[in-house]
């Protein structure tokens, strides 16, 4: 295991640029753009989304379509003794019932676990519906296809399942207890696997340390809750044997491959279409059993089958995330230099491994040093199975916990040695001249962390927070300011290196740019449109690269038959960076062809031509020009005398971009908060993020991503918790109990941008879909602690609820 991680480090080094030179960086928002890249243009998607006129998967209605529903386990841990579906099958309007055993018999492989970074990890075979045993409340047991959803739900009540209940393993502690009941009887324990990421000499670092700070942190179970729950419409054509899937997914190409793998059919027989996705926060990256169930029900009935997860089901059937316990020790010298970091991440996995396995928890360990240059580390992750829903992807993918740990430890160290926490940060930041920097696992490409921290602090001062805090305190109100600094892995990623790390999939991106016979541009992409504005962003890149107007570019998404292949999917903050980079290269090459054609027509050398607003003209002689429409016509229809003999007809370029490395964005978050010291309520007064994601394609989209990400950080820090009772029953299955912040709980946001380009990505783009989520929890926590500085509060778990905060205030006072 150790060797494997070291191999990964060695291979992750970006190829052939040890002493690279950087482009001139700027601190201004709209960095040197004189065109559409960097322009704050309105999103092409907004009109259809905001007027409710777009199409989501539940809007798909096909002739003769059936609707399905899944019978879910009411118990956390039990053997299935028998399932009697005879009454359900006889219920009027019911077309088919399948049980777990029947589904297992119909598939060729278990549900895929694509992240396998622990070579000897025990990975149980999981099937779309439970077979023999249920291991969490809500696990699918059987499914019904009927004339409509209500009838299907009626039929579910007629299925008789006999369970032999087993003692539940409700918590991490339950699972690790010596005499714990085992989820998988043939395993030695409930531990699925563990690994350690080493760097340097930790033993010496701790032996020589002036200060050692230890703490244990806990993170509640949370999940992404898109307004549109997951859903699928499957049509398995009995005559062509073609499987046509409408699927609300972030990863259509991956889904197609996994459908083929599980169903044992070649992918040419599978088409995945993705309409607008009504929010996907990672949980729609993952591949679920319902996709397979719908396909099998369609094959059984010969009809299209729609299977939509309802809101209550979503709280058990959608990927859960975040839940971890982390033990940490930090070694430092008395001047604040961090010399060592040891941590063990306990991943509270569910009853089965999801698509991404232990991936997010491994990432928590892998990125635990954050922006800091720590020479000696030993970062372990232990995966533990419990009778809870499976763990999966959620915006941030392990990084919110890494961030919380390193930022809390910096503050604790600062308190211990009596130093300003910002000075501890500055002392330990990876310096600008150290890039590319080899962190314990990944290579950081570029960054100016101290500048970003400085930008954030200046912005806080300009916003008058210090005066607001002073004044409030003079009035007896508990107001505080908190900071955090985060890094964010994006532009995922170099395929072979990801494979080396254990990913059973790729990370490249393929984009097609075409100019048609009327001179208009279409970009075909494998990325999914899930409200993030990818169609606008890619259109901006194509339009600027070709010299056409934004309105002349259409971006086609969501069909594996017509769109190219993207590795991974639309997640891991990769669409703008790797998609944008590929579009830029393809469009630039296409422009060269346009110029060659125009050069022939205008009798000028291509180097002397300029393209502006869809018209190619000779520099300095604007009357000598030809429109993109004329070039399109010459390339597709009336070419004689216009299209050079040396050029083939049509105008299309295809680019495959497999980045040499990931790209690291980063930012500094500051929060101004007020605490009601009698009730423990926390109110966010103001919120500020200074941020760097390389070249910005559209500041409006970047702002929106940061706002949305921060809203989810606020939810994670103050509100959201999937609660399980000691009996293994989930207690939060509605939005009355699972509290996501609403507009009333979200403060105003102020953003500052700087741009340090990613040299290894065409255009210099980095991704930035998750930064807002990563940095929020620690900053909010520090603001709360600052507001309560009189109380000596130390917060080690999220979310911070009013009763818990009040208890922490009392504990803090007692400790003093």
């Amino acid at each position, binding site marked *: 295991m150790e060797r494997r991680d070291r191999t990964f480090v060695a291979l992750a080094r970006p190829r052939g640029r040890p002493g690279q030179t950087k482009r001139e960086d700027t601190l201004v928002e709209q960095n040197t753009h004189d065109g559409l890249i960097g322009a704050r243009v309105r999103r092409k998607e907004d009109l259809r989304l905001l007027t409710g006129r777009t199409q989501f998967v539940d809007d798909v209605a096909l002739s003769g379509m059936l609707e399905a529903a899944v019978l879910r386990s009411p118990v956390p841990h039990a053997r299935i003794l028998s399932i009697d579906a005879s009454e359900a099958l006889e219920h009027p309007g019911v077309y088919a019932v399948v049980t777990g055993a029947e589904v297992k018999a119909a598939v060729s492989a278990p549900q895929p676990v694509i992240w396998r970074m622990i070579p000897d990890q025990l990975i149980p075979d999981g099937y779309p519906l439970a077979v023999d045993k249920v291991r969490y409340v809500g696990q699918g047991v059987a499914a019904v296809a009927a004339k409509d959803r209500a009838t299907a739900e009626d039929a579910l009540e007629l299925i008789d399942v006999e369970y032999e209940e087993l003692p539940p393993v409700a918590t991490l502690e339950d699972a690790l207890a010596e005499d714990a009941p085992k989820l998988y009887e043939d395993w030695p324990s409930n531990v699925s696997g563990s690994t350690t990421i080493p760097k340097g000499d930790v033993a010496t670092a701790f032996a020589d340390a002036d200060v050692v700070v230890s703490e244990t942190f806990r993170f509640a179970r949370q999940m992404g809750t898109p307004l549109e729950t997951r859903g699928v419409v499957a049509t398995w054509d009995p005559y062509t044997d073609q499987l046509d899937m409408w699927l609300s997914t972030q990863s259509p190409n991956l889904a197609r491959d996994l459908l083929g793998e599980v169903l044992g059919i070649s992918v040419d027989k599978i088409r995945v279409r993705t309409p607008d996705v009504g929010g996907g926060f990672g949980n729609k990256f993952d591949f679920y059993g319902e996709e397979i169930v719908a396909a099998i029900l369609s094959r059984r009935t010969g009809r299209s089958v729609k299977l939509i997860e309802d*809101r209550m089901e979503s709280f058990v059937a959608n990927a859960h995330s975040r839940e971890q316990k982390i033990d940490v020790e930090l070694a430092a010298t008395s001047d604040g230099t961090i010399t060592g970091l040891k941590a063990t991440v306990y991943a509270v996995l569910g009853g089965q491994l999801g698509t991404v396995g232990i991936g997010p928890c491994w990432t928590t360990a892998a990125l635990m040093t954050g922006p800091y240059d720590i020479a000696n580390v030993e970062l372990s992750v232990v995966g533990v199975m419990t009778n809870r829903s499976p763990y999966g992807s959620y915006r941030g993918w392990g990084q919110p916990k890494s961030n919380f740990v390193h930022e809390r430890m910096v503050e604790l160290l600062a308190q211990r040695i009596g130093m300003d926490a910002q000075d501890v940060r500055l002392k330990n930041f990876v310096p600008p001249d150290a890039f590319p920097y080899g962190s314990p696992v990944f290579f950081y490409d570029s960054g100016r962390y101290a500048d970003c921290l400085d930008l954030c602090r200046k912005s806080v001062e300009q916003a008058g927070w210090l005066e607001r805090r002073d004044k409030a305190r003079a009035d007896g109100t508990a107001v505080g300011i908190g900071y955090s600094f985060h890094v964010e892995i994006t532009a995922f990623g170099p395929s072979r290196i990801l494979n080396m790390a254990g990913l059973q999939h790729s990370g490249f991106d393929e984009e097609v740019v075409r100019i048609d016979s009327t001179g208009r541009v279409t970009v075909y992409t494998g990325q999914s449109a899930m409200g993030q504005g990818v169609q606008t962003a890619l259109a901006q890149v194509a339009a600027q690269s070709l010299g056409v107007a934004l309105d002349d570019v259409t971006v086609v998404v969501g069909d594996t038959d017509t769109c190219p292949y993207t590795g991974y999917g639309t997640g891991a903050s990769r669409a703008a960076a790797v998609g944008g980079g590929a579009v830029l290269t393809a469009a630039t090459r296409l422009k060269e062809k346009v110029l060659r054609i125009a050069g022939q027509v205008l009798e000028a050398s291509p180097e002397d031509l300029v393209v502006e607003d869809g018209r190619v003209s000779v520099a300095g002689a604007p009357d000598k020009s030809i429109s993109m429409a004329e070039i399109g016509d010459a390339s597709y229809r009336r070419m004689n005398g216009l299209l050079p003999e040396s050029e083939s007809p049509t105008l299309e370029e295809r680019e495959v971009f497999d980045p040499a490395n990931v790209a690291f964005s980063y930012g500094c978050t500051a929060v101004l908060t007020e605490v009601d010291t009698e009730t423990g*309520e926390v109110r966010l007064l103001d919120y500020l993020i200074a941020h760097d994601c390389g070249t910005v394609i559209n500041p409006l989209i970047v702002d929106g991503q940061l706002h949305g990400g921060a809203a989810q950080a606020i939810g994670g820090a103050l509100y959201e918790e999937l609660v399980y009772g000691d009996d293994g029953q989930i207690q939060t299955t509605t939005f009355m109990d699972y509290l996501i912040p609403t507009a*009333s709980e979200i403060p105003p946001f102020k953003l500052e941008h700087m741009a340090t380009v990613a040299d290894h990505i065409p255009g210099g783009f980095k991704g930035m879909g998750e930064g807002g989520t990563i940095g929020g929890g620690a900053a909010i926590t520090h603001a709360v602690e600052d507001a309560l500085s009189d109380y000596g509060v130390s917060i080690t778990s999220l979310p911070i*609820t*009013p*009763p818990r905060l009040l208890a922490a205030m009392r504990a803090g006072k007692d400790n003093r």
Partner: protein
Amino acid sequence: MKAATFEYVRATSVDQVVRTLAEDEDAKILAGGQSLVPLLNMRLARPTTVIDITRIDDLSYVRRANGHVEIGALTTHRLAETSELVRRNVPLLAEALRYVGHVTIRNRGTIGGSIAHADPAAELPATCVALDAELVVQGPHGQRVIAAADFFQGYLMTAIEPEEVITEVRVPVLAQGTGCAVEELARRSGDFALVAVFATMTIGTDGTCQDARITVAGAGPAPVRATGAEALLKGAAVTPDVISAAARAAADATDPPNDIHGPAEYRREMAAVLSRRAITKATNRANGGV
């Protein structure tokens, strides 16, 4: 989340409602639907008949009569909240209604529906208790009037008989010199209260408390009228010490639930904090402050 099958009856008169209720003991009344529809869809409520009363014309009104503000059962929260009659004569009710869900919910939810549902954390039942309101119900044997104090009997339980329907709420107009205040603690804006306190304070010209009414929601299976706290306030000069003692007495009267949003102990403690704040604010308002 699709409701199980039920018969649907669109009633056009209160008599028809009462008749249908008498015919089917598993019938449920649908008004604004803000509580019933989720329960139907989750199949937690499985009535055999749903009686839609929203088309009954004469059950939505706010009027003043006989020293009371009378509100028809089908009046929406929003209509009552924005009613000048309510604001002027029973400002506590107008203030309390602002805490009911969000505006979109208040546009649909009805006064009668919320009272009949009798969620102990809801604002309307507690406000009715605080204001000594009367509930008018109609059944096969005619009309009867029930005091709010007797109406709310437990968690989602009221004095309404199975074949009866609530038709009106009568709220006594508040005396001159009365200040009102609502203090509510909820996890988010619009959520059900963890604890909420509804207070009216009537202060005489000599500065002593003539009348005090304190009710706590979310503090037990039904709204809790804090009579002990009221006794400490009545006739007393309203000093911070007296207010604190009353607030503690109000908290002592509670028997709050324990759930994932707040332990019982926390809620009881918050009942004291919120009572102190509410009594103070109501007193200030009675004295002409805000």
